[in-house]
């Protein structure tokens, strides 16, 4: 039997052989059926057909009997490929249809191995997708409800049309989350993310900050919108300090448990922004637009773990003097900028 198979593999028609080598991916155990041109009767059977059919496809019969996947596709009118068809036994097969001058061809190739390999990656990424959807929903609801609550209490004094006001914007983000993300089980990733998110969001809310946006592994918040006894920059800076402190505490706990620790960086910028409320009663959402918002985002992306980067306007507006280092940074899309670096020292706690 193997003798015959061997022989028929060598006899693979050129049109099929060419097609096989065209594909960069490895394909195994090829088998083929030659069909009448413009009809769909089987003329010849070749290759490892036993791999795909329980009984040998009968010559002269209509191919749709042996090959149900072709329902609605016969007779063949042009070339096409059906990839990764799962067979009853769980194997995956590519089915390739080729039209030649005086007959048509169907080529079958086993692609189980590469499909199974790829399934693992797909599973991780899709698990994460579902969990992130859940996570995002919980957080968004949190953000939205805070706006609605403050609004109802009269704590939000913003006109729907838009209003100019000086505010401070804070960005915070986990460092090194992406590689961590790829190396771990999705459930673990989301739980970890939640722990660090709490470290970032609670201090913001405690300092009368408003969470404007939750990014995958960080947040944007504005200060100076909700009523507060302090200046907006002071609130933002205190929130930043508390975030770094909370992260340090969390990291100490995680270290004791032998878990991976992540860092968080913070960027703060201040300036005039246009504030507005969008949407209707139920789904009211707040927006702040101003050049300093972008600056805050850039500062955050340049902040090493454990540091707060402030822009000059923020630094000068602080009511309490702080111990920080001035330096010049080239910010993407902004250019050379004077920034102030505040470093969270462990002894600070």
């Amino acid at each position: 039997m193997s003798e015959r198979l061997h022989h028929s593999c060598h006899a693979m028609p050129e049109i099929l052989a060419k097609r096989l080598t065209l594909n960069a991916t490895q394909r195994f155990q090829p088998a083929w059926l030659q069909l009448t041109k413009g009809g769909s009767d089987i003329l010849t059977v070749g290759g490892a057909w036993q791999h795909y059919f329980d009984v040998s496809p009968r010559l002269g019969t209509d191919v749709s009997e042996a090959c149900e996947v072709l329902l609605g596709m016969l007779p063949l009118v042009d070339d096409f490929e059906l990839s990764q068809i799962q067979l009853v036994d769980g194997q995956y097969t590519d089915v390739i249809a080729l039209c030649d001058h005086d007959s048509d061809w169907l080529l079958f190739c086993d692609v189980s191995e590469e499909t199974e390999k790829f399934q693992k990656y797909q599973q991780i990424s899709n698990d994460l997708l579902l969990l992130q959807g859940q996570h995002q929903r919980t957080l968004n609801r949190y953000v939205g409800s805070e706006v609605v609550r403050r609004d109802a209490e009269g704590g939000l004094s913003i006109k729907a049309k838009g209003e100019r006001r000086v505010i401070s914007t804070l960005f915070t983000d986990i460092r090194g989350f992406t590689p961590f993300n790829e190396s771990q089980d999705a459930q673990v990733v989301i739980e970890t993310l939640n722990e660090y998110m709490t470290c970032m969001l609670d201090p913001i809310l405690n300092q009368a900050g408003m969470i404007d946006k939750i990014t995958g592994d960080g947040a944007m918040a504005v200060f100076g919108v909700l009523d507060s006894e302090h200046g907006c920059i002071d609130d933002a800076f205190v929130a930043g300090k508390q975030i770094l402190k909370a992260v340090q505490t969390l990291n100490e706990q995680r270290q004791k448990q032998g878990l991976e620790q992540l860092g968080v960086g913070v960027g703060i910028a201040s300036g005039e922004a246009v504030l507005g409320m969008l949407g209707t009663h139920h789904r009211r959402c707040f927006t702040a637009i101003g050049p300093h918002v972008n600056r805050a985002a850039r500062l955050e992306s340049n902040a090493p773990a454990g540091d707060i980067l402030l822009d000059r306007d923020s630094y000068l507006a602080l009511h309490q003097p702080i111990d920080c280092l001035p330096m010049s940074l080239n910010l993407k899309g902004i250019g050379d900028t004077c920034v102030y670096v505040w470093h969270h020292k462990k002894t600070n706690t």
Partner: protein
Amino acid sequence: MIQKKICVLGAAGVGKTSLIAQFVYSKFSEKYLSSMGVKIDRKIVQLESQQVNLMIWDIHGEEKFKKITSSYFRGASGVIMVADGTRPDTLSVAQNIFQRVEQDVGNIPSVWLLNKVDLEDQWCMSEGVVKQLNEKYVSVYQSSAKTGENVEQTFFNIAENMLNV
């Protein structure tokens, strides 16, 4: 007996495999096993006028880096478009796929599902969105592969529609 091919399409994780498992095997699993390529299932349904042998193509979810190839649509007589009611962006993914279906196979019957309706506290589809869908498409259901809500209806509806074309 008359045979018809149906494609079940949508973004990853919306519940395509679960809906088919509920309809064909009356089973549901919380565990998520992301589909590769295509798996074909069959079920015969008894309509008032006649029996139809449904050939149901469970196609992998559409992803950013893995679009569904249009050769899967060949020979389809109907499509079930699935979105996850707890993830609004999956609806636009379904609409995008449907455009490609229309380009390739023309105007064929479709049923639209907002699935996972049992997850009430996570539901994100506003009444406005549901109304818009209802205006645009003939058959729109809120379904649950978990409880079986509107699952049979979906497949019977598409079977009827395919016969009436």
